C-alpha cells in the first residue's frame, strides 16, 4: 500500500543512498546468529540422525568403536515383532486424539460463540489453561484424578458412590487417559482457529437466518459448518504431524507402559533413556529418521497449501 505513492516521490539523493545500501552486507550480520543456531540445531541434527541411523552405535561402542551397518537398523525394525505393536499404538493414539481434538475444538468454539461474549471469552480462557500449564503439573492433576482410594477424585466422586470397583485407573484405562490428556491440550488449537472463523462470518447472514425461521441448530448445520471446511482441513493436517511426533505427555503419564509406547517415544527410549543404560543410538536414530523424513515431507507439502507466494513477498522498502 505504500509502494504507489513513494515511487514518484523519491528524490535522486535518496535513490543513491539506498542503492549504496543495497550493496551492503547488513542483512548478513542480522541473519548470522539465527543462521548459526539453525545450522547447529536443525540442519546438523538432521544429517546426524540420518548418518547415525546407518551405524551400530551404542553406549558400548562409544563414539569411536562403531561400524557401518548400511540399512541394517531399518531391516531390524521391519523384522522386529514389536514394530507392529508400536505402530498400532501410534495409529490409535494419533487417530483418536485427533478426533477428540477436532470435535472438541469445534464443540467448544460453537458453544462459546453462542453465549454472551464475556462468558464465551472466559470459557475459552479456561480451555487454554491445559496448554499453558507446565506439563508435569498438568499430568499431576490427571494422576490424582485417576488415583485409587482414598485420594483419587474419580473414585471418590463417581465410582464409589455408584458402588463399582475402585482402582487406579491409569494402568486400567491407560489409552483412554493418554487420549484425554493430549486431547484437552490439543482441543484449544482447533478452538482458537474455529472461533475466529465463526466470528468472521458476516453478522447480517447470522442474524437474517434466524429471522427467516431457522433454528440455532439449523444455522450451525447450514451456515456455520460449511464455512469451517478450510479451517477443519488446516487443523487436521497440522495436528496429525505434531501428534505423530509428540510424546512428552505420554512420557510423564505412563512412560510408555500399559501399551502406550508410541513410535516417537520408542525412539526416545532406545537412544536416550532406557532401564538398561546401554543406549542404542543407531537404532534410536533410525526410528527417529523415519519421523524426520515424514516431518520434512509433510512440512513441505503443507506449505504448498498455505498461500506461500503471498507470505514471502519482496519487501517494499527497497523497491523505490
Amino acid at each position, binding site marked *: 500500500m505504500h509502494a504507489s505513492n513513494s515511487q514518484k516521490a523519491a528524490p535522486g539523493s535518496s535513490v543513491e543512498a539506498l542503492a549504496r545500501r543495497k550493496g551492503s552486507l547488513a542483512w548478513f550480520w542480522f541473519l548470522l546468529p539465527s543462521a548459526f543456531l539453525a545450522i547447529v540445531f536443525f540442519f546438523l541434527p538432521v544429517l546426524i540422525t540420518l548418518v547415525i541411523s546407518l551405524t551400530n552405535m551404542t553406549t558400548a561402542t562409544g563414539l569411536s568403536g562403531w561400524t557401518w551397518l548400511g540399512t541394517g537398523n531399518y531391516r531390524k525394525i521391519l523384522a522386529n515383532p514389536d514394530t507392529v505393536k508400536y505402530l498400532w499404538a501410534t495409529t490409535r493414539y494419533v487417530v483418536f486424539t485427533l478426533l477428540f481434538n477436532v470435535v472438541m475444538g469445534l464443540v467448544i468454539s460453537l458453544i462459546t460463540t453462542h453465549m454472551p461474549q464475556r462468558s464465551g471469552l472466559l470459557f475459552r480462557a479456561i480451555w487454554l489453561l491445559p496448554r499453558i500449564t507446565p506439563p508435569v503439573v498438568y499430568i499431576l492433576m490427571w494422576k490424582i484424578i485417576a488415583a485409587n482410594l482414598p485420594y483419587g477424585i474419580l473414585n471418590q466422586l463417581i465410582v464409589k458412590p455408584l458402588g463399582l470397583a475402585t482402582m487406579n485407573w491409569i494402568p486400567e484405562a491407560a489409552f483412554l487417559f493418554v487420549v484425554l490428556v493430549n486431547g484437552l491440550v490439543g482441543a484449544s488449537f482447533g478452538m482458537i482457529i474455529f472461533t475466529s472463523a465463526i466470528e468472521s462470518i458476516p453478522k447480517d447472514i447470522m442474524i437474517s437466518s434466524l429471522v427467516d425461521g431457522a433454528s440455532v441448530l439449523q444455522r450451525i448445520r447450514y451456515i456455520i459448518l460449511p464455512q469451517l471446511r478450510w479451517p477443519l482441513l488446516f487443523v487436521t493436517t497440522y495436528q496429525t504431524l505434531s501428534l505423530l511426533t509428540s510424546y512428552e505427555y505420554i512420557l510423564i503419564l505412563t512412560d510408555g507402559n500399559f501399551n502406550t509406547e508410541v513410535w516417537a517415544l520408542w525412539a526416545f527410549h532406545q537412544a536416550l533413556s532406557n532401564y538398561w543404560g546401554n543406549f542404542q543410538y543407531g537404532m534410536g536414530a533410525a526410528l527417529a529418521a523415519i519421523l524426520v523424513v515424514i516431518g520434512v515431507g509433510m512440512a513441505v507439502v503443507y506449505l504448498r497449501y498455505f498461500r506461500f507466494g503471498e507470505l514471502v513477498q519482496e519487501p517494499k*522498502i527497497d523497491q523505490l
Partner: protein
Amino acid sequence: MRVRAFLRGLIPFLLIIVLSLPILVGYLWILISTFAQRTYGLLPMDADGRLGGITLKNWVLLFQDPRIWTLTLNTLFLALGLTLGVLLVSSLAAYPLSRIKFPGRKGFLSLTLILHAFPSVTLLIAIFFVLRWIAKIPILGKGIPLIGGFGYNTIGGVTLVSIALQLPLGIWLMKGFFDTISWDIERAALIDGCSRFRTWRQILLPQIKPGLAALGIFSFIQGWSSFLIPYTFIVESRSAVISTYLNFLTSENRPINYGLVAALGLYQLLPILIFYVFTQKYLLQIFSGGMKGGA
C-alpha cells in the same frame, strides 16, 4: 415464554461446564491440596481421615528443602535466557527478512516456515551428540560458572537448545510485526545516513513493543514450564529444574506426598497463571498467529 428463553440460554452454559469439569477439578484439587494434610477426592482431611486438617505445613516443607532455591534459580535462568535469546536473535533475523532485499531471502523465509511446521522433537537424539561435542570446547563447553557452559549436562546448553528450537516461531512472528510498521520514518532515517543497525535499534524496535512483549511472555512461560529438554540433556535431571524435580517426586515406586507435590506444582504454576490473567490479550496473538499444532 421468558422462562423458556432463559432455560434455552442456560443450555450452552450447562454443556460447557460439564465438558470443562476435568480441567476445573484438577485446578481445584491443587489449590485445596497445598493447604491440606491430605485430600480424599476434593475434601481436605487430617491425618486420622476426618474432615479438616487445613495447614501451611506443605509450604513450610517446600521452602525448607534447600534444593528449592537452586531449582528456582536454574529454572529462572532457563526462562529468562530463553526469553532474551529468542527476542534478540529473532528480532535481528526478522528485520532483513521484512525490510531488505538480498539474495537468498526467499529461501531463508521458506526454510523458516518449513522449520516452523517441522516437529523439532524428532531431532533430540541428534542434538544430544551436538551438545556432547560442544561440551568438549574449552571453557565454553562446561567451564562457565553459574550456568555451567553451553554443552551437554549444563543449564546453558539446555537454554541454547530451547532458543534454537523456538526460533522459527519467533522469527516468523517478528517478521509479521515488522511488516505492519509504516516505513516512512525508517526511510527518512536511512536517507539521512542512519545505519541499518541503528535504524533497527532506535526506530523499529520501539514500534513493535507489543510484539516483543507477546513473544517475550510466551517464551518465558515455555522456559519456566519446560520439561523434556532439561530431562533429556541433564544427567542428574532431578536437580535440574522445577519440572524435572516434580517429575522425580511423582514417579512411581515410592509413596507420594501429595500435599508437598501439590505445593511445588502450585509454586511452578503461579507465575504462569499471573502472567496469563494479566496478559491474555498478548498471548492470544501468539496462539492464533503461529503456535505449533500442539499435542
